[in-house]
């Protein structure tokens, strides 16, 4: 099953289970339309109707604010933004209202909402390419998840929908496996097993994608696959890489990473977000603080260079971390 399909399944199952759950966003299921920019909500209105699969005007402030208001008063909105970049248009509602309402009210108000946002560079130019995780991990009160497989996408999204707090789901455009007109060139579109019986995946529990003994690589979303690709190559050179996918950034599974470092004593963080103050900076700083004495080498961050994402594929591919860049950095860490 593709990630787009597993997300759709998660939404459908939760909407069947709980009448409070509904979706809102731009073009999420107009008749004859796209089902959202990446087909995740395609066809859901057939079963749930257009009242619960609510197509909105192009009004991001309202979409986020309406989700907050609905969540505070008995509903569980799943809001959709066509490209993660547009979260900037609703930043105030997410940072000042969604994230702070429970706290400002002294714990008397809850805001059980989900905000879904596609990220990643896909040769669309700088305003349709950003990975925004680092902006949102910096906001107390939000939970941040980033599923990289169909299995995780379904299990984590269902957990997010049942969480009493605002959760932002970062999904990667090249991992959806969107079909037809919405298919993405150069997409990876991993398909994965998704069991028929219901399951949930708790936040804050990472997944070891590959075991290794020389270097620990922490990566999310598309970068998990780049890291795995690099690990294959490095193995041939006798460098054994352990790849950890934290799956959620807030909360973050530091225990898993530190246990891995105890074994490898080397850490590389790979993120598509730009480097300066990306989520990797926090993880690197935290690990350097908590696991300082287990480390034989400095924590290495491989991230997009600190530039807006360029349009030309040759430049975009250079800016975003590639398997070969990961391989090179790994080699130099081993030399260190």
């Amino acid at each position: 099953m593709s990630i787009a399909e597993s997300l759709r399944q998660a939404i459908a199952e939760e909407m069947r289970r709980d009448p409070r759950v509904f979706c809102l966003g731009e073009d999420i299921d107009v008749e004859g339309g796209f089902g959202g920019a990446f087909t995740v909500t395609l066809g859901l209105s057939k079963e749930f109707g257009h009242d619960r699969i609510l197509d909105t005007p192009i009004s991001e402030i309202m979409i986020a604010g309406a989700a907050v208001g609905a969540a505070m008063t008995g509903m569980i909105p799943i809001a959709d933004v066509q490209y993660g970049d547009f979260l900037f248009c609703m930043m105030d509602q997410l940072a000042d209202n969604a994230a702070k309402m429970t706290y400002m009210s002294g714990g008397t108000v809850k805001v059980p909402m989900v905000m879904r946002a596609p990220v990643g560079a896909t040769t669309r130019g700088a305003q349709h390419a950003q990975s925004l995780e680092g902006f949102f991990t910096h906001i107390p009160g939000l939970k941040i998840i980033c599923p990289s497989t169909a299995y995780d996408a379904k299990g984590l999204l269902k957990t997010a929908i049942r969480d009493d707090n605002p959760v932002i789901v970062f999904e990667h455009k090249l991992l959806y496996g969107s079909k037809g007109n919405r298919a993405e060139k150069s997409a990876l579109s991993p398909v994965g097993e998704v069991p028929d019986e219901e399951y949930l995946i708790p936040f804050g529990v990472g997944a070891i994608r590959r075991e290794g003994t020389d270097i620990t690589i922490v990566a999310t979303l598309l970068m998990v696959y780049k890291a795995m690709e690099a690990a294959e190559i490095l193995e041939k050179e006798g460098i054994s890489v352990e790849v950890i996918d934290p799956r959620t950034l807030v909360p973050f599974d530091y225990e898993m990473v530190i246990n891995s470092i105890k074994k490898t004593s080397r850490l590389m963080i790979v993120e598509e977000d730009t480097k300066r103050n990306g989520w990797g900076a926090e993880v690197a700083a935290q690990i350097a603080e908590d696991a300082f004495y287990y480390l034989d080498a400095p924590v290495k961050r491989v991230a997009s260079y600190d530039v807006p994402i360029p349009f030309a594929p040759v430049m975009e591919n250079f800016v975003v971390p590639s398997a070969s860049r990961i391989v090179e950095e790994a080699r130099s860490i081993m030399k260190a």
Partner: protein
Amino acid sequence: MENEKIVSMYEQMFLLRNYEDKIYFLFLEGVMPGTIHQSQGQEASAVGMLFDLRKADYMTSTHRPAGHCLAKGVSLNSMMAEMFAKSTGCCKGKGGAMHTGDISVGAIPAIAITAGGMPVAVGVGLSCKMRKTDNVVVCFFGDGASNEGAFHESMNAAAIWNLPVVFVCENNLYGASTHIHQVIKITDLAERAAAYGMSGEVVDGNDVIKVNDAATKAIEKARTGGGPSFLELKTYRRCGHSRNDACGYRDKAEEKEWFDKDPVARSRKYILDNKLRTEKELEKLEQNILQQIEEAVEYAKASPSPLPEDALTNVYY
């Protein structure tokens, strides 16, 4: 309108006025932290709009929330305690003067981002409708807020979805120090409703009876599936924008003109002129309210402060 209702509304306005005056006094005394944005002069708006709401109805407010909150039923003690930053405050001392509220009585904790509460009100209205209740939401905001993008997106969404939202623009002529006619080119903000296919109406915001008439109509319309309305209440701040603001940007003649239209005094005069109560009866009732306010201050002062570590709780629900 029944006479008892008029008297009850006066009582509430008197409470709001004297609560704010008391807060102002205490603030100047230095016993209260932060800043205050008070609502003296705008009591007819809060009371007239909210008097007929049910507990299950909702209200969203602004950085100037005290009147709205008291009129929606947030307890006087918990309001006062919040101002004193006590753990018995309506926000446990975590919210403060700009975020008071109590969801258990339908008062959404106030949002201090100008117009930031409007999209939230749309969501509340959407929720009322989706849950098939006949509850409504009254959304307060100021004249200055009507120039925010959030205003536009919220008005349009409420209109197309026919939501039970009553948008109330408290036009007190100023956004902080800026006169509204310096920042809009039209005469009445109510004209903006037409851009969304919504009905807009200008109301004398200093006449609680007129406000309440408009309110009951708009609320009934929303409750019965008639959709949103936009009311522009013309009113005025007796106080500064915040803290110790001398209002040097306001014309004194303008101030006098408006102070003469004081909603509390007008209502009191109406009651006496129409013999709904005698001077004596009113004084008794007023004493009673002043007494409650003093008790609220005592309650707040006697209440425990939060512990420093309490700051670490309630980040998540």
